[in-house]
């Protein structure tokens, strides 16, 4: 049977505020257990939450960047359940009235734009962490993370393949990082994803029974888990079984999903409006102020790069995938005025060095001025492309300027015509037979002469100039 896959994603993104959502404790990752806590985030008796306005503004930024409608009034609700990492016995979240709804993100699917709907974005507080003793039946509670601000971005069930899901995730990740409201670190849990997945016979309108997948902490794992789960569901259906609505955990080592709890075991969270917090009212002026502060988003930047720099869409995509890389690129272009050449060097050699060392562009030892200078030197003919390969590698290794490297290595190209004419004259004289061959039409011999000149000049001769002169002089 031909099946269609239906995927919806729930993404939790940690907001990059200095302090927690309802108290003034630090949000820094790590730290001695329970050192970033106070009576409020410890859920002690009689304490009260006070909302960090920054969180609302960050959520509004994400809402605007994903084309959502921001609600004029929204409220916090309590999600009630017992767990040792949840000191109040409830999580402050949003339920009936979230901060934003009805948005979308555009994906490029087989060269066509596809809209992935965003159902809602809401704000909430994170829970703490349990540390289980490996040798004794004891568990410890670390509440440093408790009260760290999160936004949850819930998509419509609009994705039709694991690739689309991964692509959507990358787009969301990119936007969050561009907005500088989330560091996007998946290993530290700053960007987390749960997936709802179901299958249905192609052409059927109704959705199949879905399962919820958790515990996938990388883009790759999301894709792997979805692929596995789709196969599992297909196998079930094709063999007369039925998919059960349940929550399943991805096991990375095993490469499989395992049942965690069924629908019957699902919690009744008893949501109700948090009486300790007042409704958040958002007026147009506030929205406009946030809108005015929005940076250029990845999609817009991509289009601008293609139009303004006349580089291929592929290049624009690679260069804008990381905001810092895009900034780096734009600075190099500004300094050297050669957009395509700059893109080639950056996407070629520079990115290769960085990838090999698992470094990000932030850690790149080559200054934008240096790369631009090198491109100019090639353009002016001061160094050859071949020399530049050596220079850029040295720049990466030492952080030195191209001029310094060229000087140290004596790499300056011989562009002095007089000097080259002398060299070529003596080479032709020494190789009369070959010269005659060339004149008689054997053009292959030309390469031999180029080689001889380069050998004589230790490769420093400007190749273009050598070509010109040789042609002229061999012709006699």
């Amino acid at each position, binding site marked *: 049977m031909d099946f269609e896959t239906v995927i919806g994603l729930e993404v939790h993104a940690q907001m990059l505020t200095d302090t927690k959502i309802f108290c003034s404790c630090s949000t820094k990752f790590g730290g001695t257990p329970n050192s970033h806590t106070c009576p409020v985030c410890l859920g*002690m*008796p*009689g*304490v*009260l939450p006070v909302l960090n306005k920054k969180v609302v503004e960050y959520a509004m930024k994400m809402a605007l960047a994903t084309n959502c409608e921001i609600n004029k009034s929204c409220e916090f609700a309590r999600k009630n359940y*017992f767990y*040792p990492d949840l000191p109040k016995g409830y999580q402050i979240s949003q339920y009936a009235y979230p901060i934003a709804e009805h948005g979308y993100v555009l994906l490029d699917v087989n060269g066509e734009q596809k809209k992935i709907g965003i159902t809602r974005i809401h704000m909430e507080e994170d829970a703490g962490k349990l540390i289980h003793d490996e040798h004794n039946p004891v568990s410890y509670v670390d509440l440093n993370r408790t009260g760290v601000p999160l936004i949850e971005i819930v998509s419509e069930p609009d994705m039709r393949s694991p690739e689309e899901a991964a692509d959507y995730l990358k787009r969301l990740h990119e936007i969050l990082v561009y907005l500088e409201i989330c560091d996007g670190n998946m290993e530290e849990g700053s960007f987390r994803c749960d997936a709802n997945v179901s299958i249905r016979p192609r052409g059927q309108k109704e959705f199949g029974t879905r399962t919820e997948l958790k515990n996938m902490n990388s883009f790759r794992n999301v894709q792997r888990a979805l692929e596995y789960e789709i196969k599992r569901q297909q196998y079930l259906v094709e063999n007369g079984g039925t998919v059960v609505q349940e929550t399943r955990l991805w096991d990375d080592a095993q490469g499989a999903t395992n049942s965690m709890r069924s629908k019957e075991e699902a919690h009744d969270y008893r949501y109700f409006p948090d009486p300790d917090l007042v409704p958040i009212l958002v007026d147009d002026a506030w929205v406009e102020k946030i809108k005015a502060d929005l940076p250029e988003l990845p999609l817009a930047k991509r289009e601008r790069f293609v139009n303004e720099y006349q580089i291929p869409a592929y290049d624009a995509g690679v260069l804008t995938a990381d905001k810092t890389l895009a900034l780096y690129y734009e600075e190099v272009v500004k300094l050297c005025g050669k957009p395509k050449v700059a893109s080639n060097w950056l996407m070629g050699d520079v990115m290769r060095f960085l990838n090999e060392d698992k470094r990000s562009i932030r850690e790149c030892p080559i200054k934008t001025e240096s790369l631009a200078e090198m491109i100019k030197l090639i353009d002016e003919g001061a160094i050859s492309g071949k020399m530049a390969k050596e220079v850029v590698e040295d720049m990466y290794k030492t952080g030195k300027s191209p001029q310094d490297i060229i000087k140290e290595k004596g790499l300056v190209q011989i562009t002095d015509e007089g000097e080259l004419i002398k060299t070529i004259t003596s080479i032709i004289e020494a190789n009369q037979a070959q010269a005659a061959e060339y004149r008689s039409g054997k053009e292959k011999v030309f390469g031999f002469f180029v080689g001889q000149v380069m050998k004589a000049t230790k490769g420093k001769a400007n190749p273009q100039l050598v070509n010109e002169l040789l042609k002229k002089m061999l012709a006699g």
Partner: protein
Amino acid sequence: MEFNQSTIHELQEKIKNGSVTASQITESVFSRIDAVEERVHSYIRLMKENALAAAKKADEDIKKGDIKPLTGIPIALKDILCTKGITTTCGSHILHNFVPPYNATVVEKLTAAGAVFVGKANMDEFAMGSSTETSWFGPTRNPWDLERIPGGSSGGSATAVAADECIASIGSDTGGSIRQPAALCGVVGLKPTYGRVSRFGLIAFASSLDQIGPFTKDVEDCAIMMNVLAGYDPKESTSVNAEVPDYRQFVGRDIKGWKIGIPKEYFIEGIDPEITAAIQQAIKVIELCGGVCVDISLPHTQYCVAVYYIIAPAEASSNLARYDGVRYGFRAADVRELLEMYKESRRQGFGAEVKRRIMIGTYALSAGYYDAYYKKASQVRALIKKDFDEAFKKCDVILTPTTPTPAFKIGEKTDDPLQMYLSDVFTISTNLAGIPGISVPCGYSTSGLPIGVQFLASHFEEGKLIQIASAYEKNAKIEKRRPAL
């Protein structure tokens, strides 16, 4: 007269003219405690050492001429208010050993005003009750008749003032927990507007209804206490940043021409005839003061108790989830796994009434029941609030009985929660609407039990309450009796 029997304003005069020291006042309070506390049981915990040290410090300040509004005045705190470094139990086994590392905002304010804290007053467990019988530390007795309840949940705060075991005290009022015991113990009790006094550090029962207020021996003291307690607190999101008047200026002003609303729904069958008689008498006094009585209607009154007993338990079920034995308070021993620890800690840690309300509240918020209970109750609550908004277009203040009966016998209603809940029938609406209310003594039953009259005003009109209560107090000339202990 003993110093402990005096009012704040009387003592302030004496402190200023040097005829009494703060230490003498505090000592007189503690000698009274030594004499009667065993019978009344106003306190869960006494803070004698701290109090004497604070009094000594107050005397040094007085010598320097530094006299603040409550300098040297012994005050009792309901044990629902967090006190830094001092065990705060909320009347519960589950918090019997909880020592807060912070002070409630009102505790900070009282300290800054020079108050001397006598101790932590007894209360119904988590303020759930109308008789102070649900306290894990045993019941408090009414000083006017030790066989009777003092009201609740702030029973200890009321009896401490009534039995002169302090000069004034702090309570909290979620559905009448200040006004009802004030009426039953013959003292003045005020529940301020929701948002007027900070709730930070007040252990939550029902967050949208809880409010802190004072118990005092007369209305002027109530004004003095409100001057200290009221005000915006950035630590509380529901705190209202509205100007706080000098409440003392309302004391002694007349109420000529004021319209006094008499809601017909509050004069119903089932009220003790002695209460009815006392309230009719109070109405006459108000008219003599120049007040003009107008008949008003609060049509949704009959739903107040039902709405309250959905909203308050719903919020409580969530507020009390944090008492799980994980981080502080009581944890059951001999448990092997997490769920068992939760269940046993809460089973052994909470009393029957608290469990009953947690269950009611959990049910009201459950999937499939939320709309029929919590949501519906919230909608009716809005109508109740609207009733008052409409009523205050027609009158300045509303007058009602505070309670339907005088103090009942200990144990009389403990097996009948519904009867117990009905003892708050006249006070609950105030909390649902968020408006202020005051109870002032208005006489005694034939058996000598105190009776209270309640005045209600619109949001942030505590000044009006002080004004009418003070006018009433001055003109009613209620015989000043003291409980025979």
